[in-house]
């Protein structure tokens, strides 16, 4: 992937031991960049994320409105959007809370649901490994579906010099736009929920199902994926009465096993 002219493979260690060599453009250190260029990239990152933000607005608002009736306090809902910052797992946590699930199961489910973010960081690691620890931590924290889609698209269209110098500033613009919007929408949703206490009867809870249906659809392009989804659906009904909502994890893992086996077997035949 990365054909960066960086002679050392152990980037992190050598950056500390050889500050002179790496203080040029290869490190992308901010003090070397004029403020105008930094602002330009932050703004570009923000602008590129706007379509994703528009899509996230209804989810953020619905999350906020559903929080209280699911048993999450307003403060808890805001804290979740500030600290967890992962839309679908926040929704799932609400769904589990609503049926009285305990914290440990919710945390374990969050782990499974957010495992897909490993893919995102795997895809980005070559393009951000020259950055400092705090930068990489910030990039990790903001690695939502939306910001990943935005930065991955930009990286694909850019050259090595851009990646070395600007990638983190562009990302910062994308991340902060998503983040600010998500927190704001959560607050708006909570306010709406308090203004209209019967909002739970408006069928907003179906919004989550509709959203997830829309999110699954793009995956249904291969037979292994189709098998995976069918197994997940059937298993989820069969395991619905398992204690602590463990059925979700059992179903997801068996579907994953079936899908992966199908994929590996059909590839071996070719």
């Amino acid at each position: 992937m990365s054909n960066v002219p960086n002679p050392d493979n152990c980037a992190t260690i050598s950056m500390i031991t050889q500050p002179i060599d790496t203080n040029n453009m290869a490190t992308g250190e901010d003090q070397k960049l004029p403020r105008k260029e930094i602002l330009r990239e932050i703004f570009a990152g923000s602008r590129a994320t706007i379509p994703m933000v528009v899509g996230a607005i209804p989810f953020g608002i619905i999350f906020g409105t559903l929080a209280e009736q699911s048993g999450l306090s307003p403060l808890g809902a805001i804290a979740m959007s500030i600290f967890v910052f992962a839309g679908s797992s926040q929704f799932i946590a609400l769904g589990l809370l609503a049926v009285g699930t305990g914290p440990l199961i919710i945390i374990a489910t969050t782990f499974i649901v957010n495992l897909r973010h490993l893919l995102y960081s795997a895809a980005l690691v070559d393009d951000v490994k020259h950055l400092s620890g705090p930068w990489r931590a910030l990039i990790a924290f903001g690695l939502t579906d939306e910001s990943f889609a935005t930065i991955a698209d930009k990286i694909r269209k850019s050259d090595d010099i851009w990646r070395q110098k600007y990638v983190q500033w562009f990302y910062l613009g994308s991340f902060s736009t998503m983040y600010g919007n998500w927190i704001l929408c959560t607050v708006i949703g909570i306010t709406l929920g308090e203004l209209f206490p019967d909002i739970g009867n408006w069928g907003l809870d179906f919004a989550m199902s509709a959203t997830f249906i829309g999110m699954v659809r793009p995956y249904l392009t291969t037979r292994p994926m189709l098998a995976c989804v069918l197994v997940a659906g059937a298993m989820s009904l069969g395991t619905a009465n398992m204690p602590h909502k463990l059925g979700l994890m059992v179903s997801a893992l068996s579907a994953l096993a079936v899908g992966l086996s199908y994929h590996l077997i059909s590839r071996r035949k070719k």
Partner: protein
Amino acid sequence: MAEALMIAGMTAVTFSIRYVLLASAGHFTFPAWAKTALDFVPPAVLTAIIVPAVLMPNGDDIEFSLQNASLLAACVAVIVGLIRKDLLTTIVIGMIAFGLFKWLL
């Protein structure tokens, strides 16, 4: 208290997943089969959430009938999703359909 614990735990697992590979800065690479396996995670998890929510709207028994508004609306959402291939349209039409079925039934 349980709420704070839950949020702290969710934060910890989410951040760890997102950070572990970036922290290692390329020293640890991901085997190809694991990447393939991860591809199956979102549809598996999401489907396992949708199906009971839609077929068991009251949480106890499977309601496979024309009286089940969420089942009917889910069918609409699936059809719209397959035709329009657009997330926002799927959500909006799915929700309108749900409201309509609920009002009618």
